[in-house]
């Protein structure tokens, strides 16, 4: 029996790494698809270039958060020219923890405003 991977040492993720992990959380992707997803996820705020993309992919692979995949889950994805990447078990754990961390952050930031608003209404 193996222990569940511990995401804590990898948190928080840098912005580029976070967006790539979030893109791969939707399924395996090749480079350009990741760039497109990052742009969509960030409402066009983050437009990642190939250098930033593969520089970050290199780090994420070294950290064991993502891996290159040879077999395609969907035959329609099969494009021999491109490398496809997916999250590892550790990457999925880190992604879930990071989403939770950010959700908590947003929640804590909103609470005082809501409390103030309720106070004014009362």
């Amino acid at each position, binding site marked *: 029996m193996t222990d569940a991977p511990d995401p804590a040492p990898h948190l928080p993720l840098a912005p580029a790494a976070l967006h790539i992990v979030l893109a791969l959380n939707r399924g395996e992707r090749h480079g350009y698809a990741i760039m497109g997803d990052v742009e969509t996820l960030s409402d066009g705020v983050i437009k990642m*270039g190939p250098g930033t993309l*593969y*520089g970050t992919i290199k780090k994420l692979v070294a950290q064991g958060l993502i891996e290159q995949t040879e077999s395609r889950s969907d035959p329609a994805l099969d494009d021999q020219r491109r490398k496809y990447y997916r999250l590892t078990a550790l990457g999925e754990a880190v992604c879930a923890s990071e989403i939770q961390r950010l959700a908590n952050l947003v929640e804590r930031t909103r609470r005082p405003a809501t409390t103030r608003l309720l106070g004014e209404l009362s």
Partner: protein
Amino acid sequence: MTTVQSPEALERSVRHYRRLLVLYPREFRDEYGDDLVQGFRDLMIFSRDHSWWRTTRDLVTSATGEHFAQIASGNRPPPRTILLIALAIAVGIVVGAPTSPEALLAPLFLVPPLVLAGLPIFGVAKLREAFVVRRATGSPVGRTVALGLASFVPAAVFLAVFGGEAGYWIFVSISLTLIVGSGLGIVWAMSTLLSKSGAPAGRWRPALVLIPSVAILAFIIGASVNSWRNSLGPPGDHSVANASTDTRALWDAADTGDVDEVLRLTTTTCADPWVKFPHGNGRHNAKGQAETRGIEVPDDQEAPFDEIADHLGRYQSQWSDRCDAEAD
């Protein structure tokens, strides 16, 4: 959304981008080079707002990051990196300084000492690789010849641009290279000797480096001190306030290129050649000193100034004996 671009233009852009990948460390390029090109090609084809500005910014920031990551991981950066850094420094100096056309070449004289300064980072073998011209030459002999010829390029450029003044820049370059090289040699030899204090075998090699390094550095320091002391002149009051009429007349003649008057004053009077006028004493470059005082000297009228500079140099060396070290 597909951008409107002809296949030829697309392939041309991809070729340019592939060439720019040289900015990345070799390991990164080998592993992700094809993916970078594919990503760039996809952006060119499918992205609506792709631009070279975006690509360049991405390239520069990510390539810089990869080089830093490589250094941080303990790997030695390839020699090409230091040459690129040296080039970037040279460009920075050129762009950052108010320059004349000739001054654009001045950073070149920093290249040899900068390359030498990279020696402890890269090691001899790696540094040698930086100079190997693989495409132009095939054999080791050919490479050595190419390296030898290439080492003359900066000097040739200086000669072509600066003419007679090139010697000064070449002297500066050689001096800096010798200073850096000697300093590195001393540090390496001392650290090697100290670390091998318990093992006598092989000590001769650091000693062979240490002795000439110390000798070269001592010679340069000694020559510099001697040159500085000579520039002060003999003891005595050489202030402008104390300058005699003859002394003032001598420097006015020197500044205006009046050779006959300079010759007359230096043979019939004891005009002080060491007086410290704000614009210098005109010994080494009479034309330059004249121009400092706002006297324009056309290039085709330099000859008298060169003659005066040579003559004043000789006059300075004889002045103490002839005039008994008395300032006028």
